[in-house]
């Protein structure tokens, strides 16, 4: 082994960082890219299926109803507000305010998940009638699994903050969770436009 | 037998031409790379030899850089040339045939249904696994599939084209030299994908007209009692449930059409020569020859079987 020459020290480097300086942020970004790309592929398949039909949605298949989906979309967009406050509180390391906004965020993201059940049936078609129904159900179903995963993360984080002492780096995780929530909501806006509004236009 | 190397149609000849050019240039490139590799070992060192680092010599580096740039440029040139050559061949294949003979080919699990389309219904021919085509006249195939994806390919005549359920694709060629050409399904389609062959017999126009007239003519009615007994066995036991013989009560389209069965050279989708002993062996237990095929073994006694085969032999 060659002898070692000290060329500097890392002792005074911070151990908790936020945003793109932290590893967890990059991991979250990685999975957002994967899930975003999977959604893009299914949407591409949805539009590919569109070529096989003269009319879209196919004959005798009603348009997806817009009432419940629009309400759910609004709720999802509104839930970005608590997410922003969670991120801000996390960056200020203000645990009290973080806990409060985490509870608001948990509720704000649980409601759309529950409404999603009626939103699925708002497609007005079953998954096993036509390829149109299959495609619509697959896309909304896949996003529901993303939504479920993120709701579990948020609820878990909130629960942990109330029942156990949390390390400082969990603040960074909280801001990453909000970052992931923006993606989930953003992804739904695209799906909403193509699957619910699209049939009236395509 | 059948291969890309001896083409019998302008299409296959164009591709063979492209192949031999690619093979030549490819072999030359490969030999050049091998030569460069072996020559680069001319100053190799013993494994245990001194291993001091070789500092990059500026003179040598700039020289070798020019060589690498040149090599890359030559590679790009070869590839662009090859691309242009391929497009020219592609255009030959993409020309539309002028008044072609149209044959509808439908792929089933493990046999080919052939239909010579014709407005006049009496001139239509429905047969299986074997086709006669006139030499010198373009033949256009309309390809459909009833179950899974198959692929129509006659190496001597033209490239392959998939038969995909939900799609109707077409391919055409013009046989130049007469002969019997064999092809096989080229897309994996299940248990008996290996034995799903078809035969195309290219004949001069006169012979083709003779064959066509015979193929359209009515079957000869069975004359003596054994033939009648054979036909009755065909009609009453399981045969007529799947097979059809035009001019008789058997009209089911589940299995291959057996009209003029004896005029075919091979049976069981190109698996066995059409001899009496093979037909008997096949009818008795097709599962032994093509396990998994949809034709069940037949519970016939020996004399019933011989009567049936005798009757089948009259279907010239």
């Amino acid at each position, binding site marked *: 082994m060659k002898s070692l020459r000290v060329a500097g020290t890392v002792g005074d480097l911070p151990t908790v960082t936020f945003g793109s300086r932290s590893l967890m942020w990059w991991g979250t970004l990685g999975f957002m890219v994967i899930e975003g790309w999977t959604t893009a592929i299914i949407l591409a398949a949805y539009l590919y299926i569109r070529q096989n039909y003269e009319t879209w949605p196919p004959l005798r298949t009603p348009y997806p109803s817009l009432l419940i989906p629009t309400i759910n979309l609004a709720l999802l967009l509104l839930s970005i507000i608590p997410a922003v406050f969670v991120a801000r509180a996390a960056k200020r390391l203000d645990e009290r305010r973080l806990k409060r906004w985490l509870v608001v965020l948990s509720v704000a993201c649980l409601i759309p998940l529950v409404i999603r059940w009626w939103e699925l049936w708002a497609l007005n078609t079953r998954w*096993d*009638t*036509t390829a149109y129904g299959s495609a619509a159900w697959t896309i909304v179903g896949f996003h529901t699994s993303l939504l479920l995963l993120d709701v579990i993360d948020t609820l878990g984080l909130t629960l942990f903050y109330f029942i156990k002492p949390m390390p400082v780096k969990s603040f960074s995780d909280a801001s990453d969770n909000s970052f992931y929530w923006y993606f989930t909501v953003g992804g739904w806006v695209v799906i909403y436009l193509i699957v619910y509004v699209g049939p009236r236009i395509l | 037998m059948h291969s890309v190397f001896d083409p019998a149609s302008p299409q296959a000849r164009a591709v063979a031409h492209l192949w031999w050019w690619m093979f030549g240039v490819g072999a030359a490139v490969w030999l050049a790379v091998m030569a460069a590799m072996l020559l680069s070992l001319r100053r190799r060192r013993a494994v245990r030899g001194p291993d001091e680092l070789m500092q990059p010599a500026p003179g040598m580096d700039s020289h070798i850089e020019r060589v690498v740039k040149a090599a890359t440029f030559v590679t790009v040139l070869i590839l662009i040339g090859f691309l242009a050559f391929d497009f020219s061949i592609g255009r030959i294949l993409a020309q539309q045939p002028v008044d072609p003979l149209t044959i509808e080919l439908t792929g089933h699990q493990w046999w080919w249904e052939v239909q010579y389309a014709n407005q006049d219904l009496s001139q239509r021919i429905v047969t299986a696994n074997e086709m006669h085509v006139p030499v010198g006249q373009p033949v256009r195939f309309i390809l459909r599939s009833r*179950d899974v994806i198959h692929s129509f390919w006659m190496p001597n005549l033209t490239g392959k084209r998939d038969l995909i*359920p939900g799609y109707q694709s077409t391919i055409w060629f013009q046989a130049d030299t007469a002969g019997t050409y064999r092809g096989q399904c080229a897309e994996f389609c299940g*248990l008996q994908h290996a034995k799903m062959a078809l035969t195309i017999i290219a004949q001069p126009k006169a012979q083709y007209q003779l064959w066509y007239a015979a193929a359209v003519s009515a079957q000869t009615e069975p004359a003596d009692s054994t033939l009648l007994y054979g036909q009755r066995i065909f009609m*009453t*036991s*399981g045969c007529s*449930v*799947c097979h059809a013989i035009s001019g008789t009560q058997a009209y089911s389209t*589940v299995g291959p059409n057996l009209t003029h069965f004896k005029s075919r050279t091979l049976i069981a989708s190109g698996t066995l020569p059409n001899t009496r002993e093979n037909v008997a062996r096949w009818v008795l*237990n097709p*599962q*032994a020859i093509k*396990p*998994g095929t*949809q034709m*069940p*073994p*037949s*519970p016939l006694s020996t004399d019933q079987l011989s009567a049936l085969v005798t009757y089948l032999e009259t279907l010239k």
Partner: protein
Amino acid sequence: MRNAFLILVAIACAGCEREERRLNQPSPPAPTQFVAQVPLQPGPTFVATATEAPFDDNAYGTSEGERLFSQMNCVGCHAHGGGSMGPALMDDQWIYGSDPSQIFASIAEGRANGMPAWKYRLTNEQIWQIVSYVRSLSALTPKGARPSRSDQMMVKPAPAQTPNAKPKRSGPPGGAGH
């Protein structure tokens, strides 16, 4: 630990059984004993036990049955199981009983009002395959072996997705109907 291993072996054998492609094997024999439809019968009374259809838990056999069901034009009278001229095959009403031997008899011998006899047209193996497919239409066979959706139009829920049929006594007492 031992019985966990036994359960695993049982699942494995079920897997084996369900996935087996019985190619080039002798045709399973026709049933000799038929479960009685009516309790009245001459001579000493006996109650035949339910017979076991050879392809009930074999996915390949049942799918061959589905192929034969459409190729032999059973669809012409029974539709895709919903019934039209012929009786419906998806419900739990069985005029001649739902035991495999009874269905085999219905197909081989034929029944009144137009059901043709297939005894000389189809081999025993093919009839047994159709028997298993017909029983899978009303979810009497194990779920794993029942066919999923077909590549035709979606006219009925796929047998594999219909819940298992509750055992219901069918026809007069003594009918198997399991």
